[in-house]
Structures are given as C-alpha cells and as structure tokens.
C-alpha cells in the first residue's frame, strides 16, 4: 500500500471533498483563452503536413522526395529513413509512427513535410512520389484467419496457442481464463443460451484533433507542446522512436480536448521534432478530422460467441465465451481486458473465456474508455438478458442472484476487496424510473459493467507560497476537471480554503514522472501523491511550529489549517503565519511525493435504457436513461456525474449508429462526423445518475476511478431494450435503423 491509509475513509465529514466549486481552469475555458494543442504559435513557425498511404496493404518500393524538397518555401521533408530502424520492443510503435518498408493500413504515415504555408506544405505532399506494390489485404478477423490469408507480419507466431504455433499467422496471441468444469456446469443448467455477436471498430471521437508543435535545436534538443493524456509518455515514446535520450525532450502539456484513451499514444510528436530539427525552425502539425479517423484510435471490431447456462431459479452454472478482436495493423487489441472483465460481475464456477488478438489492415487500435470491456460485455450481458427472460426472472433479480461481493474470487483471478456493485443494482431497482410505465413500441433494457481501474505511477509537488497560498503541481493532464479534484484534496488535507490552492499541470522538466491520464487513475493515484505531499508539508509545518514554540513536535497538531499546541498553551499559527516567517524556520516550504498506486478500487455500473422503436422504419429514440455507478467517494460530484453521463452517451452512440465503414479496397468511407454519426444533443435525453459511494479502502478518501466503467453497459442495455420493445434479439452492432427494420421484416 503506497497511498496513505486513513481511518477517515469511512467518515464523510469532509469540508471540501464532496463539494462543487468552480474549477480553477474554468475561466480560461469559457472565455476562449485556454490553449489547446493547435492554439500555440511560435515565431518563425512552419506548417507541417503528413503524407499517408492510400492503400490498405502495400510494399513501399521507393519514395522520391527530391521535387518536394526543391519547392519554394519547403524547409524539410522526412521519411522512415530519417529515423533509426524500427526494432526491439518498440518496433510496432516506431513503424506505426512512420512506415518503413510496408504500409499496413490506409492512412499509414509515409512521409512528412514542413513549409512556410499550409498551401505550400500541401503542394509539397503532392510532389512526393511513392511507388507501391499493392498487396492483398484483410479487414476482418475472419478474413485474417482464413486459410491462405496474406500475413501482415512475416515472423508473427501466435503467443499462447496450444500447441505452440509454428507457422506465422495474423493471430498475434491467445489468452485463456478457465475454472471448474464446463461440461458439468452446462449439464446442471435448465436453460442454456448461446449467440454469436459482431461489433465494428468505433472511434473515441474526441473533438480536438491531434496537434503538436516542436522546436528542436540542431544538436537535437527539443521542446514539444502537444495535447495528450500524458506528456511524460509522449516524451518517452518520442525518445524511443527517435533513438534519443528522454532528457533531450521537454514536453509541455497543452490543454487537451478529449482523449478517452486515444491520446495515450504518439502520432505526430516524433515527426514534428524531426521536421523541426531538419528545418532549424519550429514546426506545427495539426491533423484534419479525416486523418484522425483514418489513422488514429479506434477500438477493436470483433466477433464473439457467448454461451451461458443457468438453473430455472436463476443460478449461473456455466459460461463459455470466445472472443476474436481486431488489433488493427499491429498486435495489441484489448482482448485480454475484455476477457477478464466480461464475467467479473458474476459468481460462476465453471467457465472458459478465450480471446484472440488478430491483426488486420486497419489503423492500429488505441485504448478507448475501459478498453475491451464494452465489447465483451455486450455479448455476455445480451445473453444474460435472454436467460432472465426465458426463466421469467426480473433482469436485476437475476443479476443479484449471481452477484460478486467482497471476498469472492473474480473469474480473472484476484479476490474482490470491498466493492459497491450490489448497491448499484439496488439503486436502479429502487429508482423511480424503474417503475415508469412503458408506452407502445417502447422497451426497457438492463445491463451491468465492470472495470478494474488503474493505479500506476504519479508524482506531485506542493509549494507553499510566501503568503500561505499553495501551488500544487502534478504531471497529469486535466481532461475533465482533475485540477479541481486535486485542489479539493489539497484543501481538505491542509485545511485551507480551496480558493487558496492553485493546481497546475506541470511539464516534464518541472515535476516528477506521471503516467498517462487514463485507466480512471488520476484522482486515485495522482490525488494520492498530492495527499502524501500535503501530509509531508503538514509534518514540516508541525516541526516549524514546535521549533518556534520550543516544544517537541509531538506537542503540535495540525487542525483546520493551523498548528496548535495539544494543550492549547499557545495561540495557533496558520499556514500563512508560518509561511511569513519561513526564513527563520528553515526556508521555503515544499514537498514532493511519488508513488506507485496499489489500492485500486474496481468500478461497477448498472444501467437502464428505455427506448422506443418506430416499427415502420426501425429508428430508435432513447426516451429515458438511468445509470448508477460506484464512485467510492465523489470528490467533485458534478464532474463524477459528468463522467457517468459522458460514458453513457458514447455507449449509446456505439450501440446505435457509430461504426467504421470500409470499402472492399480497405478505404474508410465515412471518415467525417457527418457520416460517422456520433450522438448530437437532440439524440439524447437527460441522463439520470445515481452516485453510489462505497469507499475504496485503498484510498485516503475512498476514491475509485469513475471515468471508464460507465461505457461498459450501454451496448447491451440498448440491445436488451430493443429486444424488449420488438421481441428481436439483435447480436450485431450498430443497431442501425436498417438492421432493426431487417429484423422486424423477418417476421
């Protein structure tokens, strides 16, 4: 346990934690001042632009950049040859950043230019001559695994296959989780339901396209401004792709306009750094939306089978789940996490969960909010709904009959500590919305979701200013109000007004290492580092007061932002008092803390979707949506609700309309918001939230990550509601009007 433990965990008598102050960075963001990735301009800055492959799979025979280089205003041109060979552990990342001998998807980077104007950069791209030898491509797991399929990576042998693989294939790896005896379990079942499911790749859909500005000196030191979910990661990855020492790169975080996992990876930074180095001037590269769709994100498309057996009184006896996930062009789909999460909400003795990571000629998948879990959850939760229906049990009661609780062993191994899963089911059961009558053509769907949440590494520095105000520095980009949470926790610890705390996201040169803002970890882990640093400050302050009063430190306690003698024999000293006199007590007051967070609390969510289906056209209208999720402790409840609502909205989009559409040549056909169809405001109702607070024993305030699990249930909740409205079980996403009408017309 690296985060300090506190008996206060179960005591909600906080002064600041749980309040809803205006976030410190809010004013900049409502007045247009906040600087996002594309908003930085440097003197002499050049415009960068990227040449991408028009083919889904091809050998690069030659690249002739001479004409482009000779053009007026073109200051540098780079290709894969400007980087060290892609090899070792970082081989895939390096060749995804810029292709070497082969392009593996439409949109794969082939070259980049920097020029004095956008127009000139664009013209220079047209002047680069690339000769390709087009290769046959594969777009789905089935195509990729078919006999005789073209193999994307020559030496790729399936890891974890039994028996060991000897022939290269497109299956990168196999994972398996097993327990008990499947045959016995299914034999005990009164009902067995099995379905095959498919889902399409979907994009994180952040509104801000990727952007990076680099200013590199000729001797190879670079300052980079970019919007990412982790500027330390951007530094590390850039250094790896360039073959540089990390210390040569300083990354300054811009505000980030959404990431949802998709900005934990590098795309532009090494290109900008290299272009700038060759040109001797700063270079900015901003992706277009088209590039964002074709070359970043998405998460996996999949094929799955799920078979679950249960007794007629609602006990699950066995579950057999098989998952095939598209990884995109390089190994690394979230199939492992998907396998671990899908049965985690249930006590099930006899089970097999098998997953395959399959490469295809599409963009390399990136993390997307609870990566993998929504996909496998769609399959399992759809089958759970069918079973509840066939044994005539309420879907919430059916889940309550199989619920995991503290002390139960998860299907993926560990024992659950205290969790608030059952409480989320009960919150929905007791919600007035659960009693709302349904109209004609309306249906109600229930689904649950699980996500581990992450811990990882964080650092924080707390500097007390000379007037007793406090600067908190962390290295975790603020995506959805984390500055506010950091300030609230520091205020709570130090006992000072939250208005006297300035939380800052500091760059890689000015604060200790922080992993990415992802895995719902920031409030937990970076917050833990802030709490620890504050506690070090308090130790220091008590010592200084003791010195001033000439007593032992244990005679001094820190209460309500003041040092007090235990016996009350001295007038208390406030933080400001001690700061004012710091020259006499040892100089400025500062502390830094770093940790590897361990006490991660798992997240559970139960959701209910009410919708209406137009029986003549298959169009779905969401009429009501209710979500209950365990937050452990809501530090800033508004932003917790916001996380719940945002996850639900993305999940609804995934369920109903979002998908990557590729043509037979492997070219994406809907690389824009008009045809990708994310939900707009008029597509959604209010999203009713219930914050369940079952404190996480591993965090000083009981925090659990809240960012991700909310996107796990909607896919199945929507599908289950469509089934409830129409009597049609649809196992393929998206549930577009076309698909629903097809099912209705089947009769």
């Amino acid at each position, binding site marked *: 346990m690296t985060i300090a433990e506190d008996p206060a965990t179960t005591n909600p008598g906080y002064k600041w934690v749980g309040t809803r102050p205006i976030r410190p960075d809010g004013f900049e963001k*409502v007045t247009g001042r906040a600087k996002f990735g594309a908003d930085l301009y440097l003197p002499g800055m050049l415009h960068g632009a990227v040449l991408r492959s028009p083919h889904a799979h091809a050998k690069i025979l030659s690249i002739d950049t001479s004409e482009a280089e000779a053009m007026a205003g073109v200051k540098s041109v780079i290709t894969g040859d400007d980087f060290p060979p892609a090899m070792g552990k970082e081989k895939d990342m390096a060749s995804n950043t810029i292709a070497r001998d082969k392009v593996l998807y439409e949109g794969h980077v082939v070259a980049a230019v920097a020029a004095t104007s956008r127009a000139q950069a664009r013209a220079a791209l047209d002047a680069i001559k690339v000769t390709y030898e087009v290769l046959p491509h594969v777009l789905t797991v089935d195509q990729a695994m078919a006999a005789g399929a073209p193999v994307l990576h020559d030496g790729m042998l399936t890891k974890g296959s039994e028996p060991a693989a000897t022939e290269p294939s497109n299956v990168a790896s196999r994972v398996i989780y097993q327990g008990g005896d499947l045959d016995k379990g299914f034999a005990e079942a009164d009902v067995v339901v099995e379905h095959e499911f498919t889902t399409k790749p979907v994009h994180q859909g952040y509104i801000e396209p990727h952007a990076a500005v680099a200013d590199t000196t000729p001797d190879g030191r670079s300052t980079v401004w970019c919007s990412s979910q982790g500027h330390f990661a951007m530094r590390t990855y850039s250094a790896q792709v360039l073959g540089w020492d990390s210390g040569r790169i300083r990354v300054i975080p811009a505000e980030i*306009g959404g990431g949802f996992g998709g900005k934990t990876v590098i795309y532009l930074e090494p290109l900008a750094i290299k272009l700038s180095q060759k040109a001797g001037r700063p270079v900015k590269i901003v992706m277009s939306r088209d590039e964002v769709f074709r070359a970043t994100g998405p998460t996996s498309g999949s094929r799955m089978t799920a078979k679950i057996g249960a007794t007629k009184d609602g006990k699950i006896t066995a579950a057999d789940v098989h998952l095939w996930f598209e990884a995109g062009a390089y190994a690394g789909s979230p199939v492992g996490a998907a396998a671990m999460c899908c049965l985690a909400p249930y006590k099930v003795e006899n089970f097999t969960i098998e997953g395959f990571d399959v490469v295809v000629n599409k963009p390399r998948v990136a993390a997307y909010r609870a990566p993998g879990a929504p996909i496998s959850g769609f399959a399992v939760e759809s089958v759970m709904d069918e079973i509840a229906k066939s044994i005539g049990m309420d879907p919430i009661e059916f889940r309550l009959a199989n619920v995991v609780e503290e002390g139960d062993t998860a299907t993926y191994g560990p024992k659950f500590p205290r969790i608030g899963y059952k409480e989320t089911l009960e919150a929905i059961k007791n919600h007035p919305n659960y009693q709302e009558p349904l109209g004609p053509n309306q249906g109600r769907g229930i689904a649950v979701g699980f996500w581990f949440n992450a811990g990882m590494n964080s650092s924080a520095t707390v500097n007390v200013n000379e007037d007793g105000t406090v600067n908190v520095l962390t290295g975790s980009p603020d995506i959805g109000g984390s500055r506010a949470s950091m300030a609230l926790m520091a205020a709570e610890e130090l006992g000072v007004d939250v208005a006297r705390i300035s939380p800052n996201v500091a760059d890689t040169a000015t604060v200790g290492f922080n992993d990415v803002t992802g895995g719902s970890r920031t409030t937990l882990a970076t917050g833990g580092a802030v709490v620890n640093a504050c506690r070090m400050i308090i130790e220091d302050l008590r010592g200084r007061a003791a010195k001033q009063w000439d007593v032992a430190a244990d005679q001094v306690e820190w209460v309500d932002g003041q040092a007090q003698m235990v016996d009350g024999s001295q007038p208390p000293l406030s933080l400001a008092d001690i700061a004012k006199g710091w020259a006499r007590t040892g100089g400025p007051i500062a502390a830094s803390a770093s940790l590897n967070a361990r006490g991660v609390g798992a997240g559970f969510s139960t959701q209910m979707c009410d919708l209406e289906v137009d029986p003549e056209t298959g169009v779905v209208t969401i009429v009501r949506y209710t979500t209950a999720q365990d937050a452990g402790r809501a530090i800033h409840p508004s932003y917790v609700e916001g996380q719940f609502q945002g996850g639900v909205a993305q999940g609804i989009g995934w369920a109903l309309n979002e998908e990557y559409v590729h043509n037979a040549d492997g070219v994406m056909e809907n690389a824009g918001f008009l045809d990708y169809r994310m939900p707009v405001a008029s597509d959604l109702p209010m999203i009713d939230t219930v914050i369940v607070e079952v404190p996480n024993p591993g965090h000083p305030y009981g925090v659990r990550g809240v960012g991700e699990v909310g996107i796990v249930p909607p896919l199945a909740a929507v599908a289950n509601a469509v089934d409830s409205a129409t009597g049609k079980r649809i196992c393929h996403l998206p549930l577009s009007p076309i698909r629903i009408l097809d099912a209705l017309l089947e009769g």
Partner: protein
Amino acid sequence: MSTKTHVTCIINGDETDFLTEDGESLLNALRDEVGLTGAKEGCGTGDCGACSIIMNGDLTASCLVFAPEAQCSTIVTVEGLADGDHLHPLQQCFLEGAALQCGVCTPGFLVASKVLLDRNPNPDDTEIRYALAGNLCRCTGYDKIVRAVKEAAVQLRENGKVQA
C-alpha cells in the same frame, strides 16, 4: 508569388484588418492572422460547431466561410462574450453547472447558445437540444450543457437584459 487579400471588418466591437489567401477559411484567418484562437477546428467541414461565430447576426461555422467574405462584416467570437471581467450569464452558468469537461467544444456551445437565447429567451429542453445539434460534445453527454443553458435563460430573463 501569391497575392493576399486585405480584409477589414469589426470583430468583437473593434475594427480589425488582416491579410489572407483567398481560399483560406475565416476560421484559419481568425486564428492565424487575428490571433483569436477561441474558435476551434474540430472538423473543418461544418459538422461539429467548434468553430462557431456570430457573423452579421447569424450563427455561422467559420470553417465554411472563405476569409475574404468577412470584408465589412461584423463578427462576434467567444472572446467577445464577456463584458470585460464580467462573464456573460451563459459563461457563468457553464462554469457553475460543470457544463464543460475538456472544454474544447465550449466556445462553440457558448456562441450557439447566445444566438439561441437572443432569439428565444425561454426555450424548452427540446428546443435547446435542436438548436445545439450543430455542436458536438463528446465528453458531457449534453445533460449539463442543456441545464446550464436553461439556467442562463432564467437569469437573463430575470435581469431583463438579453444582450444584443
């Protein structure tokens, strides 16, 4: 050598001029030449509303406008909503209602909401949702945005000062 066009217009109440390529978008001109980076490019093709401005009184996607079209026009951007250090009620309500997460869509939503409330001081939820359908937000699920706009409408009605 390409020749540039000289454009003079009123931006947020001030006479402003800039040079631009004819084919450049007004969004790029505002950002690159005028230095107003509040309007964002989320798509460049009219689909997301992040670049929303008010041009001659109409809500407009500045990415769809050629920069020379701004000649003699009157433009309001998100930078022009506050009155000095006095936030517009919409800005205040977005802050208080946590109607922004990452905040990149926020300038567009504020501008679009202002146009809505100027036209319809008392919109219902559905009217708000349809009026803001041209603005994509991927973070919030729109719930808190709709509430913030409603709250701002109440405040503006109470203050009786729907600004021009």
